[in-house]
């Protein structure tokens, strides 16, 4: 055990911090163009797609270096990169399962955010039970004809391409008749309608596909291999944001401390109230445990261990913590915590700063974490079955077509 950062990582952090201090935009980025420009600048400096192999335009960096960049960006409050789903999940899927032609055509523009990507997975009736999805892709000559509806699509309105899961064989058990194909979002058969969330923002969309066209050369892997590919995609790269996420919690916590020195109860600052102190002490303990856990993940990744099903423990733990964190913060802050400033649209998940007016949005947004990417209940099933080896439940749908 040695929880010190290596000299290389310390030096890398210092370089990254210097670069960010010199280059971070001074004003808010309001347009997609400005955000793409900032993304491109980060890319040129080697801070995007860091885990990607060099041959595909990546840096071939270590997971720790990538986590350090995220951490430093959180620390300085830098605007995030865009195309996160593409770079974090879809690109790696193409690298593993794609053809040479697909790699050549799509990867570079994905990294540079010249083309924005979305994931077309969930459907109105296929949430936790994703494999029951109904969107059809029917083969017709050199292409598929796609009909159906997707929901909870991030970056929908700005996406140029989507990674689509669709049913290509309705006559076999549900997990076995799904294929994975790339879909051009800029075509008449694709209709993107923003979905308004409880935060008032529209980070997600519904996507309606009516006789949309997907090319057969854009099929990822084999026909009917889609479920298998989707399973590996869901488990990819969960450590990258862990340090940065905890740093954001810590920044928010210190803002909370500041606020409790101004707000009063019984004529004294809130921070002098023992009941408030107990809540805050508990919160900080949990926050620190999240930090230790993220160091443990980074250690495992550094040793080349694949987190596998254990990443469900991490996801379950931090998303449930995040809910408790904002629940408690809003209990403490009273009406002040419910102020909602006219902030810019949240472009990425996991953004909060503890600035006045941001607590309410963060509080509302924290509801999402325990639902997206496999709800807490699904994570618990995975942990129960694959980590603890508990018997599978009897599932009526496994064999049904």
């Amino acid at each position: 055990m040695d929880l010190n950062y290596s000299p290389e990582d310390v030096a890398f952090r210092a370089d990254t911090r210097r670069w960010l201090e010199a280059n971070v935009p001074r004003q808010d980025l309001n347009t997609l163009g400005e955000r793409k420009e900032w993304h491109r600048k980060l890319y040129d400096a080697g801070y995007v797609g860091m885990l990607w192999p060099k041959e595909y335009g990546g840096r071939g960096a270590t997971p720790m270096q990538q986590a350090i960049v995220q951490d430093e960006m959180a620390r300085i409050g830098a605007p995030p990169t865009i195309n996160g789903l593409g770079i974090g999940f879809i690109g790696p899927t193409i690298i593993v399962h794609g053809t040479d032609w697909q790699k050549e055509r799509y990867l570079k523009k994905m990294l540079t955010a010249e083309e924005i990507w979305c994931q077309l997975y969930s459907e109105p009736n296929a949430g936790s039970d994703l494999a029951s999805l109904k969107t059809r892709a029917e083969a017709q000559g050199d292409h598929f004809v796609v009909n159906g509806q997707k929901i909870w699509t991030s970056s929908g309105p700005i996406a140029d391409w989507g990674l689509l899961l669709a049913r290509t064989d309705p006559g076999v058990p549900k997990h076995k008749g799904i294929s994975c194909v790339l879909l051009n979002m800029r075509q008449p058969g694709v209709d993107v309608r923003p979905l308004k969330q409880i935060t008032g923002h529209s980070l997600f969309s519904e996507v309606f596909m009516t006789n949309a066209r997907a090319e057969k050369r854009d099929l990822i892997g084999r026909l009917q291999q889609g479920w298998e590919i989707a399973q590996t995609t869901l488990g990819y790269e969960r450590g990258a944001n862990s340090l940065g996420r905890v740093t954001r919690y810590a920044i928010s916590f210190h803002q909370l401390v500041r606020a409790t020195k101004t707000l009063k109860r019984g004529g004294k600052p809130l921070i002098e109230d023992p009941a408030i102190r107990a809540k805050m002490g508990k919160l900080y303990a949990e926050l620190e445990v999240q930090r230790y856990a993220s160091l443990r993940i980074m250690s495992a990744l550094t040793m080349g261990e694949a987190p596998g099903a254990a990443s469900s423990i991490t996801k379950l733990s931090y998303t449930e913590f995040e809910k408790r964190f904002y629940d408690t913060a809003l209990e403490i802050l009273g009406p002040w915590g419910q102020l909602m400033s006219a902030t810019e649209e949240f472009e990425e998940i996991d953004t909060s700063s503890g600035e006045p007016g941001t607590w309410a949005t963060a509080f509302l947004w924290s509801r999402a974490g325990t639902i997206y990417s496999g709800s807490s209940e699904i994570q618990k099933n995975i942990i129960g079955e694959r980590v603890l080896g508990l018997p599978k439940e009897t599932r009526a749908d496994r064999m049904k077509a």
Partner: protein
Amino acid sequence: MDFSFSSDQQLLKNSAHSFLDEHCKPALVRSLIDDPRGESEAMWKEMAQLGWLGLSLPEAHGGSALGMVETAILLEELGRAAYPGPYLPTVLAATALVQAGTTAQQNRWLPAIAAGNARATVGFLDAGLDWDVAAATETRAERSGTGWTLSGTKSFVPWAHVADVVLVPARSPEGLSLFLVTPSARGLSVRPMAMMDVTSRAATLVLDRVPVDAEAIVGAPGTAAPLLAALVRRGAVGASAEMLGAARRCLDMAVSYAKVREQFGQPIGSFQAIRHKCADMLVEVENSHSATYYAAWALDAQAEDHDVAASVAKAYVSDAARKVCTEAIQAHGGIGFTWEYDLHLYFKHAKALEAMYGDVDYHREMILRRVSA
């Protein structure tokens, strides 16, 4: 960044695990419930031979000079076995002597402890049960000739009835001081207390003008406050490790039971009500592992945040262990509530440690003092 155990540490863990599986079975633990001493002399000697009692002591005194990480590894395994005996109190007392004792005190006690010939403990608490030892100690030390006279009451002193030496904090005119007291001292009475946890013992020490000589003071008069605060923190990390072990044992038992116990024609582990409970328990156990070993490492490395980390570990693991052990009983149903089934051994062991070396509320306050300044 390496959060994993080194091969030596893993070896220590494995050998402790298999030794305790063989030599500290629940049957042994149960056989000691009605024993007046409550611990096994044979096992204490074996622990000495394995090098456990000198693990963190200097090599010059027969120890291995290892750190808190290794100590925590052992304590986790001891907690997993609900080992009944004065291991943690002895380690804490020995640490105080290593850090502040005179050469004569070290020579007298450390080799004996490492060899398994002496047990020691620390009487942190006065009657008010306040872990802020520097503020709360009312036991007095008055000068008497060349030595001192100690008067007061020490409560819930772990394993004091078998200790060969007790470290007693007392307020002298110079401030908080620390003294070595042997059980045979005139005016000292040791009164065992009946407690819920059947795997640990505690006693009240009544000091009625107990005379100790000038050589009994550990460190200069009036300088014990920081030493004792550090000792409470070390105890907190050690207790966290033991609670982690107890929690892991309870989780393992719940999972094993859920695989074989059938109701409605299926193993109960196939029901989400039980499976999700077990998943939640695993999250708590893994987070407790991170908290415990981070704090142990931070103590060894004297990291900037080592004091916060100790409080984080104790505050977090106390809650987590309580939750995991309780849920294990729930997952078992009726059998988990019986005296014959072993779960209550670990449940009570963890519960007893929850109250020691600062409870959850104490450590939350310690954390907030540090981070809100």
